[in-house]
């Protein structure tokens, strides 16, 4: 197929980890409880609409965004609000809904896609509770419904460690996906849809989007990279991004008039016995999935909502996140390695550096990993290693330093508007000073939102 743009990404690194999900999916029966976590969204400040014990239907708002009160977060199932877990300063961490047998849903009038205005579509998305699926640049927060984005970027390319196959996830949802694209095309001028280069699947029949092809190592699948190369974000502009499966969710909602929160989620990693995909609803109990995927629960595992570089640390009693299609499970690495700092020793530990023969030993074979830091945090000494895994026209080291000293003017000038913390995942992994780049960028972005907005 032909692409409007062909992106060839050279900087980056593919990390092949053992336990990638097989392309088979299991439909799981519903779990007892479902949880919606405000923490799944960056810089979200919420206000609750319900108390514990309240009865809810599928689509009943649970809480809203204080910054944009019209953005509501709704219950994915019908039942009773069982528990509201609060953290520091009474911040809401989890809203847990206990499922009932009736399964009633709120129904809304569907706007006619042929005739309706942009505002009617926006109102429907907000009312039904689909809005949180839309994320905006700058900052990587939930899209501001009062702004019109210059474009929407969608990536069907996943190069992350243990990344998922969006072609497989969307296999049975092509009609819904097409309808979702039609809905989105009413919200912006242009939709960019990124495919792996040489793509030959069914999604090439999609209409209403500008196609581009991507090849190269991770982070070649990240929207930030695509935006930087195709339609860079300028001061005062907005670009939206959305997860491909959520486009199908929006498409389905425009057929049924109900909130749709389907999630095809891969459980993967070298801690998983039978890595595969599960078809569930957002907020499903994690334990249920882990048991089905034959995770060895006897060892000390790390459970991650998301991928190994950028995901969220959760425990086995937690629930799946709002936006991720991947759960990674790897063993914890709390062991000592005698003289492990010697170059060319312990070559089984994953490394992209030539100070280890790991590249020679693993070839293209997937490897086992754990969570050991493999060293200690140190002053920044080595230069040039960040640029090797950062394919954007941005100086990563200088941007990180500007964030550390909270120099807002410099952060703007160096491109803080064009990045999200996830773009720095590989820098976290590769840098020899064990710098927490994602955390630094996160606090830099928080500062920007507070001071600049």
């Amino acid at each position: 197929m032909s692409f409007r743009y062909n992106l060839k990404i050279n900087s980056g690194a593919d990390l092949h980890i053992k336990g990638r999900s097989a392309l088979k999916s299991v439909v799981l029966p519903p779990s007892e409880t479902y949880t919606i976590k405000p923490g799944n969204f960056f810089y979200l400040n919420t206000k609750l609409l319900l108390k514990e014990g309240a009865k809810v239907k599928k689509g009943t708002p649970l809480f809203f965004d204080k910054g944009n009160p019209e953005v509501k977060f709704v219950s994915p199932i019908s039942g009773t609000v069982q528990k509201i877990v609060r953290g520091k300063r009474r911040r809401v961490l989890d809203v847990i809904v206990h499922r009932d047998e009736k399964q009633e849903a709120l129904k809304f009038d569907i706007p006619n896609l042929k005739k309706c205005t942009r505002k009617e579509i926006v109102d429907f998305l907000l009312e039904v509770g689909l809005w949180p699926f839309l994320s905006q640049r700058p900052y990587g927060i939930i899209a501001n419904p009062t702004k019109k984005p210059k474009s929407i970027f969608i990536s069907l390319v996943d190069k992350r460690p243990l990344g998922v196959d969006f072609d497989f996830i969307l296999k049975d949802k092509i009609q819904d996906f097409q309808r979702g694209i039609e809905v989105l095309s009413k919200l912006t001028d242009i939709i960019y849809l990124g495919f792996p280069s040489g793509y030959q699947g069914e999604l090439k029949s999609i209409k209403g989007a500008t196609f581009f092809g991507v090849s190269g190592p991770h982070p070649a699948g990240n929207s930030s990279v695509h935006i930087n190369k195709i339609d860079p974000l300028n001061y005062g502009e907005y670009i939206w991004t959305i997860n491909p499966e959520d486009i199908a969710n929006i498409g389905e909602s425009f057929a049924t008039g109900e909130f749709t929160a389907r999630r095809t989620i891969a459980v993967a990693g070298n801690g998983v016995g039978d890595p595969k995909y599960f078809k569930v609803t957002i907020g499903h109990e994690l334990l249920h999935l882990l048991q089905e995927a034959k995770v060895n629960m006897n060892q000390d595992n790390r459970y991650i909502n998301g991928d190994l570089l950028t995901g969220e640390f959760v425990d086995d009693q937690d629930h799946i996140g709002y936006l991720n299609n991947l759960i990674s499970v790897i063993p914890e690495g709390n062991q000592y390695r005698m003289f492990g700092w010697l170059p060319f020793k312990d070559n089984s530990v994953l490394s992209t550096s030539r100070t280890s023969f790991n590249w020679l030993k693993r070839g293209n074979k997937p490897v086992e990993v754990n969570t050991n830091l493999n060293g200690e945090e140190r002053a920044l000494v080595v230069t040039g290693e960040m640029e090797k895994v950062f394919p954007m026209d941005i100086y990563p080291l200088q941007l990180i330093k500007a964030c550390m000293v909270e120099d807002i003017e410099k952060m703007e000038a160096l491109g803080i508007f064009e990045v999200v913390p996830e773009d720095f995942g590989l820098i976290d992994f590769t840098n020899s000073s064990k710098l927490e780049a994602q955390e630094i960028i996160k606090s830099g972005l928080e500062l920007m939102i507070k001071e600049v907005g």
Partner: protein
Amino acid sequence: MKNKLRHTIDSLKNDLRYSSNLKKFVPAVNAFDTFLFVPNVVTKSGAHIRDAVDLKRTMITVIISLVPALLFGMWNTGFQHYSQLGESVSLFESFGFGFTRIFPMIAVSYAVGLAIEFGFAIYRGHEVNEGYLVTGLLIPMIMPVDIPLWMVGVSVAFAVIIAKEAFGGTGMNILNPALTARAFAFFAYPTYMSGDKVWVADASTIDAISGETILGTLAANNPSIQYSWWDMFVGVVPGSIAETSTLMALIGAFILIFAGVGSWRIMLGCLIGGAFTGLIFNLLGVNALMSFPFYLHLVVGGFAFGVVFMATDPVSAAQTTKGKWIYGVLVGIFCILIRVFNPAYPEGVMLAILLMNVFAPTIDHYVVSANIRKRKRRWQLAKANG
């Protein structure tokens, strides 16, 4: 044995942690502990998996790359000494002679430098950084063999305190600490650092021994060099301990570039800058240094050693990719310029690198500014169109 050792360290650290007087020594014990074991610390935020590479591994790689030059320097020290006396001795004896002279210098350098580093770590309450492991080996390698040990100690103390810790410690220094130590010794004790009586062991005490460096001979406008190109390339000439051998520096360069630790851009930049400037002077050819063939400029003195191991120090060099090219080329140009125009300092590479260390942040500033200008122009264009 491994478990027993682990147990001993853990209980020692536990005792220290709960003692109010000794708590501040935890970083010092940690430094030894982490030399035996990579800690069992797991990731808490950010990426959940991390590369096997850390700063220790990086620094040890640099030390490995220095070993060929060091071993050759030890042998050459003995060889120069005995050949001046007209004695022919075995390879092993030459090496043994050099070893007995150089090992004490290394020991003093590490003892003084690490003592200061540990002191600052305890005082500031941070972990001991590994940077000094490289600096501490480099300093004796770029000194003349006859320099008294106390001068090595004083130079080390000056370099670590003034050039490094005063700026905030590892990663913050402007100047390369090893070169600062040499520059300090060069200006503080000139009689021990230049002339024709310092480059071969015992030259100042035994009359039969003398030996000027090639650059020193040329600076005296004496164009008769009795060494062949091969001698200069392999390094069988008088000079600072480990700087003489271009061949060994190339082996080091290969290790550094292969491991991705040293910047090939800086090295290649230096080579281009040095060769170009040498060629220009060859065309002018007014005095002995100017007419010295440019390809020989690249193999004499400390050019190769300085370019491979000193100019590439990531902290004091330029940090951006473009900046590294500019920095490298300028180091090469200034090295030959200083050699030719300033016969008082025939060894130009030290001063050229220190000079460019000072300008490296400026180079980076302009490289990054270009990126900023490009972005702002794009913003203006978008504003004008939209």
